[in-house]
């Protein structure tokens, strides 16, 4: 029987969006059955357009900067967009897949995406905000699959 992996994706920043999609697409390629439960800010990863997924230099001292930048400069308008643009360029030049490409690969490989209904309601998302072929459920839905899983991670 195929191994199973259950992931919870809770973050909506660019750096934290990668791990669930990387692990899920890889596990699926290895023949694993995979389910990702998207909750809180992780719901952003299910939006049709992933352009709002950004990386923030703020409160992120590990982020490499081309020049040392004081925190009050990092707070200025446009800094987040600039950091995101630079990170995306860097990723492209290193052959790292875009989030959209990885997400498509997951769906192609039949990774099951579950949106947390409670947080969908909390943030007043519409189903039309999200991509197709996702399910809506709660903690019990996740626990059912997680209970049978070989690997279970909270990201």
């Amino acid at each position: 029987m195929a191994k199973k992996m259950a992931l919870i994706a809770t973050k909506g920043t660019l750096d934290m969006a990668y791990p669930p999609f990387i692990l899920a697409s890889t596990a699926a390629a290895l023949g694993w059955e995979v389910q990702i439960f998207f909750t809180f800010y992780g719901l952003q990863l299910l939006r049709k357009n992933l352009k709002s997924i950004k990386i923030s230099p703020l409160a992120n001292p590990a982020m490499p900067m081309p020049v040392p930048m004081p925190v009050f400069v990092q707070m200025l308008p446009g800094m987040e967009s600039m950091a995101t643009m630079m990170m995306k360029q860097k990723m492209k030049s290193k052959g790292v897949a875009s989030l959209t490409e990885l997400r498509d690969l997951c769906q192609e490989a039949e990774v099951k995406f579950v949106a947390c209904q409670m947080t969908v309601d909390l943030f007043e998302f519409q189903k039309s905000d999200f991509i197709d072929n996702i399910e809506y459920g709660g903690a019990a839905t996740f626990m059912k699959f997680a209970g049978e899983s070989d690997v279970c991670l909270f990201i």
Partner: protein
Amino acid sequence: MNFDKEYDASGLACPLPIVKTKKALSDMASGQVLKVLSTDPGSVCDMAAFAEQTGNALLEQGSENNKFVFYLKKA
């Protein structure tokens, strides 16, 4: 080594070499051999792990023109 199909994953980073190798294998028949080229140093360990977990035998691996080369026999 003889092979039936070649897939070039040069320039791609994790997890693409593995995910795309899996896709390249999907339309092949059991027993056929896929040659994979990669420039990702991580793919050396990853391809062995992929072979072990999927049953597609890693017949041979090495390097060719500064690229990593793998021969996988489809299970």
